[in-house]
């Protein structure tokens, strides 16, 4: 009898992502979150005084807020055990040759330097709490494009950072936004001047190597009038037996007539609490396009928010979430129509299997002045077995009579008729099911950069090997 793969795949094979380096950090903060820890991080990063004040204010807010009363159970997270700042034993380099060998080989395995040669206009690579590599093509520098790490931006573009930093995601927003405000480190800053189109994507990759640590990178992107950019974010970590925490923050300012595509494939290890906050402010005629793939982490709470602030501003959100054994992935999107003639299109697919829990959660809000707002939401959920969960929780809050809002959702499993049909054409059952799943996520895959679409397909292949036996 043929060996069934299920018997042998207890956990998902993630060799590529799970290779750990020896922890050779130059410095680690004390575990836990105290004023002394925050002051220490700030001093080590040579923050200006106003940033230290904001960190300390965020700490106060953090201590005053409770955990969310909704969403996945976060009781496993003990902030007293989390090391919030891990400085790798490496200085930021502009050449890969200058990056320490073990760190460089990690990014080599992840394909970042290769992608940089072939298909990217700039790369940022963060390892634990600090960015270790950053580059940008000269032609973009000449056009006034800035792509650098947040610490450099804080020194060289201080007034811009001061004006925008945590303006869209204020620390009072929720407990983990406050945590981020207190201990943030690393991340990327992008500034695209008026009329400049960055034709080739920029990519930042965030790798968390240290066990029991947190990563709190801040991404700030500002697109001036009539400019455009495709920004790609990737993240992964090796698996440990202790909880790691990711509480990053992404703030996107899309100017009048500008267009930003923000693509993410999130593939954190299964011990990660991924409590990330992403928000975009879109001015008149501007467009924000989110492409979001959530595959990793133990618990995720991720709902990119688009504030359509100017007339005719648009949002496109395309997302896929794949929850497997031991995962509780609570993902979705929110859109606030705050101006007339704004429009949004949200399309998501969720898959759950092997006891995984996938939740789609969304909010569509139309303010009273946002007449002629249009929003269409489509959410499809696929369950691959009867021990998993799939929940859909959308909310529409509409004020005014000139809005046109539609929402549709379906839930179900792989059609046995479709499997039978494919098998009758000579395709094995395993292949047939994998084909159907790939077809299910195809609307998302086609929106991803090619190498990410390939990565997503590989992830799905790996995941499905565990289910078809």
């Amino acid at each position, binding site marked *: 009898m043929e060996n069934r793969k299920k018997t042998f795949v207890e956990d998902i094979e993630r060799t590529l992502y799970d290779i750990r380096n020896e922890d050779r950090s130059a410095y680690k903060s004390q575990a836990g979150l105290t004023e002394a820890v925050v002051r220490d991080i700030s001093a080590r990063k040579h923050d200006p005084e106003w940033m230290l004040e904001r960190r300390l204010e965020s700490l106060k807010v953090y201590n005053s807020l409770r955990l969310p009363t*909704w969403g996945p159970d976060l009781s496993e997270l003990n902030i007293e055990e989390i090391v919030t700042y891990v400085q790798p034993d490496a200085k930021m380099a502009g050449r890969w040759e200058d990056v320490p060998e073990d760190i460089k080989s990690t990014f080599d395995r992840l394909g970042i330097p290769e992608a940089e040669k072939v298909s990217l206009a700039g790369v940022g690579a963060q390892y634990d709490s600090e960015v270790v590599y950053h580059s940008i093509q000269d032609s973009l520098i000449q056009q006034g494009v800035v792509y650098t790490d947040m610490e450099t931006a804080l020194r060289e573009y201080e007034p811009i950072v001061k004006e925008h930093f945590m303006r869209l995601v204020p620390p009072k927003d929720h407990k983990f936004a406050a945590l981020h405000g207190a201990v943030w480190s690393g991340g990327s800053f992008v500034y695209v001047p008026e009329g400049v189109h960055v034709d080739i994507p920029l990519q930042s990759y965030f790798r968390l190597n240290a066990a029991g640590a947190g990563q709190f990178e801040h991404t700030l992107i500002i697109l001036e009038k009539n400019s455009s950019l495709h920004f790609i974010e990737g993240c992964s970590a090796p698996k440990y037996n202790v909880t790691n925490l990711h509480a990053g923050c992404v703030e996107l300012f899309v100017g009048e007539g500008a267009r930003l595509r923000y693509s993410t494939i999130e593939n954190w290890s299964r011990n990660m609490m991924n409590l990330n906050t992403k928000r975009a402010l879109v001015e008149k005629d501007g467009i924000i396009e989110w492409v979001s793939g959530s595959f990793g982490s133990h618990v995720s709470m991720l709902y990119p928010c688009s504030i359509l602030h100017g007339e005719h501003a648009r949002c496109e959100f395309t997302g896929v979430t794949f929850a497997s054994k031991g995962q509780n992935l609570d993902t979705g999107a929110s859109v606030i129509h705050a101006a007339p003639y704004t429009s949004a299109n949200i399309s998501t697919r969720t898959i759950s299997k092997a006891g995984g829990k996938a939740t789609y959660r969304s909010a569509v809000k139309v303010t*009273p002045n946002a007449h002629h707002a249009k929003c269409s939401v489509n959410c499809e959920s696929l369950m691959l077995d009867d021990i998993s969960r799939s*929940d859909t929780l959308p909310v529409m*809050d*509409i004020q005014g009579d000139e809005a046109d809002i539609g929402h549709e*959702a379906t*839930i179900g499993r792989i059609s046995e008729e479709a499997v039978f049909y494919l098998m009758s054409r000579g395709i094995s059952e395993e292949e047939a099911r994998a084909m159907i799943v790939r077809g299910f996520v195809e609307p998302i895959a086609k929106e991803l950069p090619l190498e990410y679409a390939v990565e997503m397909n590989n992830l799905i292949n790996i995941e499905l090997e565990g289910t078809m036996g």
Partner: protein
Amino acid sequence: MAEKIYSEIPMRTWRWLGVNEARVADAVLAQDIDDVQSLSVAAGESRELTVVYRQEGQGRIDVKVAEGGSLKLTVVQLLPTDKRHASQVAVELARGARLEAVAVEVGAARSVSKMEVLLQGDESRADVHVLYFGNEARQLDMNYVLVQEGRQTEANLNVYGALLGQADKIFRGTLDFRHGSKGSKGYEKEQVMVLSGKVRNRSVPLMLSGEDAVEGHHAVSIGKMDENKLFYLMSRGLDMAEARRLVVEAAFNPVLDRIGDEELYGELDDYIKERLADE
């Protein structure tokens, strides 16, 4: 003013949306309109129950339908528009039992209602039709939960609403497929017609599933009145007010037509016409 949480959605979400729970003033809860209306429908029996609420307070209906039994339940809330109301309906369906429910919410200054239908038995079926109409500054809060436990159950939730004036409405509708409800189907649809720029409409269609061998679908559409329909009717000689009234009536007919009591039907029809004429 003291108040209590009266109903909650089965799964909470962001607090800023204000949809996680509905509260009712203690003063309203203290006034039981009647004792709990309990009804047991025996195996194989068919029954009808019609309840019309006209006075302030809280109403409660508790029904169990035994194997193969069927119930047609009509619940109408027709309070004066300065009164407050709360009501709850709980229905349990055994194997092969059927429920056809018609719920109409048209009166009261503030109304909070909830209905929980448990499709416990295999092959049980619930068809729930809801109509709500909000005008002036009235507040309507509804929470409908259809839990599918048995195998091959079927739940349909069809909701039609119209909002005008400064009405503020929340409709939560949940299809909950429990583990083991293999072969079950669920369908939920809410259509909201918004007739004024000052209304607030919140729609919360939940779909929860712990079972893969199910088919679930929900859809919500929120928009203003179809201008093509209005244009057509006005081209046939109707004025704007008459055309609007006709379009709203047509939208409500799938629910109103299920009310068997002609007198009640006429009263509701007149009520809605009058309110539309007042706008």
